[in-house]
């Protein structure tokens, strides 16, 4: 099992086979619940994976690819798990449809009830209910008429869910071919600053004009901008790292630090405007990683890590729930100014993270608005409510709890219940209730995996990720120039941290931020970005191998 394309192709083909099994399981689970899954989508998924499985043949044959295949295979493995869970979710009308949601849910409930009645009720009972009096009999799925899926050939082939992965694969190939060229890398390294500015200008404009955040549905068009930002930072760091290491009383010279800081700060502007705090979190951790790796002075590292920790502490202190703060002396006074400055969204997320099952009081400023809306709607239905509140103060508490779990805490709470109900091996594909978690195809996909595949499924995702990251780090270690080393390390850190921040948000190890799980989550630009990153890593890996081969040949010739 050396790094031969053929052995990886075998693994990839087996992944395709297993995914086919999982799709059948989902199909069968759907039939039990009384609806059909789309066969077209199933075949589409298998075809996509098959394409990815045989891609190494072409890359090795015609592209003369020499890099590490483990990068590719672990990414495809993650992608296949993602496709499986997405298939589960997207074939469920209750999850997908906006108008027929309630109807689809009712039909599912009814199917379960009818199965139960058919198996258990005597003919007399059935007749009393208004059903044909049949004897008790086991359920035969082949005799039932499930709710048909909206299945059309063209609809499937030309949907975004087909085109985007295809485009991502094309990007992958293109990037591999492009980034393995010396001249391309040289241009990028020399014009890092220009690259960043060129990305920044349209992005900032777009961000300021549409502050709504996610503009086109679930699309995040600024996602690919991460790559030029990273290249820019790596480029400037590759130039400056030696100077930065030269310190005077532990502080490097200003003329070295300022350009770096400037470069590092630039990407934060658009993301701040877009309120994409998850990306900011990932960006800062990646930059810190790169700085620590490149600059080799211990005190500087301490200063940097210390300041990052301080920032985190300030955030946490500011957002700690009030009753927790009250327990520690001096903390409330310390936290007050911080609280004023912190945006509402961050405070909400922190409260959800640290004390998510405990609703804040209705007077809390970042919660008041939502609560009041909810309350107004209630009053519209029940005009006597204000008077009842006067008489019974406990009522407000219960309304507050209901509002909290209906609005802000709804998604995280449902996800946590999902995690907890999954157990060791999960409920089985198609047997969980992942459709109850909103947006569980992208941000919350780990919750869906955990519910239907359990701890075991989560472990597979984590280890596939660790493999991917390890392979990326090896690429960085083997890289021979600082720029590609930093680039490879940065890309790896990007994928790794993004995944950790996402999974940490769902498991409540970190505040939830709404960024995707690379390769697994459904998404347009995020998927394309992930594949481009993979392509770059593969290109770097390829360059490493070629370097060594060339060098070896040179040495051999010289002998």
């Amino acid at each position, binding site marked *: *099992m*050396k*790094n031969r394309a053929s052995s990886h192709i075998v693994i990839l083909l087996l992944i395709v086979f*297993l*995914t086919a099994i*999982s799709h059948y399981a989902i199909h*069968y689970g759907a039939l*039990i619940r009384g609806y059909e899954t789309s066969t077209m989508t199933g075949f589409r998924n298998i075809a996509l994976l098959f394409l990815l499985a045989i891609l190494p043949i072409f890359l090795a044959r015609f592209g003369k690819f020499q890099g*590490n295949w*483990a990068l590719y295979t672990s990414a495809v*493995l993650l992608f296949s798990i993602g496709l499986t869970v997405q298939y589960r979710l997207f074939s469920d009308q209750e999850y997908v449809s906006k108008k027929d949601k309630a109807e689809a849910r009712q039909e599912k*409930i009814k199917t379960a*009830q*009818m199965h*139960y009645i058919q*198996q*258990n*009720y005597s003919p*007399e009972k059935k007749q*009393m209910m208004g059903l044909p009096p049949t004897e008790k009999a086991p*359920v035969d799925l082949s005799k039932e008429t499930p709710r048909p899926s909206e299945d059309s050939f063209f609809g499937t082939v030309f949907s975004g869910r087909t085109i985007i992965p295809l485009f991502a694969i094309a990007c992958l190939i293109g990037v591999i071919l492009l980034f393995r060229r010396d001249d391309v890398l040289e241009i990028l390294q020399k014009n890092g600053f220009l690259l960043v500015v060129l990305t920044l200008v349209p992005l900032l404009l777009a961000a300021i004009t549409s502050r709504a955040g996610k503009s086109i549905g679930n699309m995040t068009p600024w996602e690919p901008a991460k790559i030029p930002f990273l290249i820019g930072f790596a480029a400037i760091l590759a130039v400056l790292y030696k100077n930065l290491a030269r310190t005077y009383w532990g502080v490097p010279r200003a003329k070295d630090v300022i350009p770096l800081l400037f470069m590092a700060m630039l990407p934060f502007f658009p993301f701040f405007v877009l309120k994409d705090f998850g990306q900011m979190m990932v960006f800062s951790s990646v930059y810190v990683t790169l700085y620590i790796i490149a600059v080799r002075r211990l005190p500087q590292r301490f200063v940097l890590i210390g300041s990052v920790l301080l920032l985190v502490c300030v955030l946490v202190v500011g957002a700690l729930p009030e009753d927790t703060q009250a327990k520690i002396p001096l903390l409330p006074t310390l936290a007050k100014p911080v609280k004023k400055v912190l945006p509402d969204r961050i405070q909400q997320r922190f409260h959800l993270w640290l004390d998510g*099952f405990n609703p804040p009081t209705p007077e809390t400023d970042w919660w008041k608005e939502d609560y009041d809306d909810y309350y107004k709607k*209630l009053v519209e239905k*029940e005009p*006597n409510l204000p008077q*009842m509140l006067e*008489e019974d103060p406990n009522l407000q508490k219960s309304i507050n709890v209901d509002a909290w779990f209906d609005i802000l805490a709804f998604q995280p*709470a*449902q996800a946590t*219940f999902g*995690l*907890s109900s*999954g157990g*060791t*091996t999960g409920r*089985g*594909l198609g047997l969980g*209730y992942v459709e109850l978690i909103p947006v569980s195809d992208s941000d919350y996909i780990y919750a869906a995996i955990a519910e239907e*595949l359990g701890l075991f*499924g989560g472990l*597979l995702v*984590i*280890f596939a990720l660790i493999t991917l990251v*390890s*392979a990326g*780090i*090896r690429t*960085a270690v*083997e890289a021979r120039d*600082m720029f590609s080393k930093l680039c490879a390390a940065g890309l790896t850190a990007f994928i790794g941290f993004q*995944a*950790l921040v996402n*999974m*940490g948000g769902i*498991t*409540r*190890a*970190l505040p939830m931020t709404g960024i995707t799980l690379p390769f697994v989550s459904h998404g347009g630009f995020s998927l394309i970005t992930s594949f481009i990153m993979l392509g770059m890593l593969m290109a770097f890996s390829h360059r490493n191998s070629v370097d*060594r081969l060339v*060098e070896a040949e040179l040495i051999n010739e010289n002998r």
Partner: protein
Amino acid sequence: MTLLLFFLQISWKPESWFGGQILERTPAGLSLVYLIGVAVLLIFLILSFLRNTRLKFAFEENLPKQVKRKLTSTVTNRSLRIWQFVFVALALTVYGFHVYWTYYADKNNEQFQALSYKDLRTRRTNAARLRGWMLDRSGKLGSALAYYKVEKDGTIDRTFALEKEMAHLLGTERGTPGLERTLYKAEADPMPEAWEILTKIKKPEEEQRDVRITIDRDLQAYVAQQLQGKKGAIVVMNPQTGDVLAMYSNPSFALSDAEKLEGYLRLEGDKMNKPLLSRATREYYVPGSTFKTLTMMSAFRAGQQDLMFPDLAAPDCYTPYKNSRPICDAGGSCEICSVSVPLREAYKVSSNQYFAQLANALGRDRMGETARLVGIAPVDTPEDALTQGYFADIWNASNKRIANSISPTRSTIVTGSKLSLYDFGLEGMGQGLAGQMTPFQMALIASAAGNMQGMLMKPRIEADVPPQMFAQILTPQQAAEVRDIMSTVTEEAGGTGGVVKSKLSGTNISTGGKTGTAEKEALVYDQKTGRLKTVTKKRKNENGELVEYQDPVSYERTDGWFICIAPLENPQVAIAVVVEDIGNRFGGQTAAPIAADVILKARELGLLGEQYRPKPQTTQPKKRK
């Protein structure tokens, strides 16, 4: 060749591998296969990655080891390795949180447990799982109280035959649970994991058993009809077995209204009518003269049934001690009360003076003892009297949850030694500090008198649990005597419950009973707005300033009572009726006719025994509601 044949023979349908009878097994098994398969592939991948060490430069081959290490491990590369290590540690930490939520949160995180009702999954599984049917005492599917029906729009809904009439018994889906939520066994684990589906579940889901309860569907409907437009409660029991035949509290509510939050809030907010309150089991009333039955039973238990009290001097009232307030009969209504009369006569005319003296003569211990035996808690001080909680143990139920769901508020009397003779005398006649009686409790007292063995049977709601005794109260002879004395009220001329006899004339049924009329302090509500009426008063606060506050207005509400047993020879029903706010009338005029009608209906339904049942041709077959 044989191998090929073998492959052709085995079925390639995955359903047949995992056990097709249980549908869920197929996807569960397949997803396990998927998991294991991916795990194996991942292990291969990691192995291949680990073995794929980096390419060596040709010149490295001959270099000594230390030099080679120096060449390859730059500070940057070491940092990268450390970072990789940190990343793996972080990833495993995140995974640790996942483990926490799956394994420990269920057991150890109290907040998480308390909020499990917010989990939509349980709501979903509950919606899909059908409860057993609830059948009335006949056990016929045709007279089911709660069952499933296919609605016009095709949904399958839990339907209640007596949705409004039995609302308090059935209980709402939010708030305190009732029978509907407790009668059926909770599923052990409604959400099995994939491997559990494969290994543990051997047969398809078993049906939840139908439960037969002791309520008679027709009687319950009839009882509910009797109280329409009034506030009050009726409890009908079988004194021989403890079966609760009907129990109703008016105003009631429709269960479907309480399902939605708004509807529930509206019901909850209706403080004037309190529709959610089960008056039969959870409201305290002043029992009035009906309580004299208990005092009488105490006298029998003490062997003091023949006690006579000396004639009273003018002004014809009983004064327990010097300078005490007198205990009189209402408006001087009783002419013989001031003279020495036997118990039988005093009970018939409901003499307050006699029973006040009797209570004092019997003493607190004896009264308290009898009270405890019928389920009333004797307490020391008036403060304790309102804090005795619910009395679930009175029920003869197959499990605690059922008993809790319909448990009555514990009725209490004060028997402490600090109580004055006047106050205790008042208790003996059902006034004053005896004012914490539930209608359910009064039905139990009637039931104790009606039992042929002189026992109090534990009330039961499930028809299939064997009858159980709560306490032996009287000897059979004493019980017969008590019944005989009770019959004076309804059967003899001059009894306060004479209306019963006239209503039952021609049916050959003789009854015994006791009327009661009692005043209770009650708050005034505005009839239009439903709000509490208040007057603005002033008082001094801690700082000595005068502050205005709203003081609720209250008035003396008169409640009419009637408890009775029928038929006298072998009582099959013990009834307690209370009607609130009867104005200037008495219990004998308001509550007693209702009880008589209920007895007639019970007779028609054959609940009194076949010999009393009217001839079939005389009654028209009534259509079930």
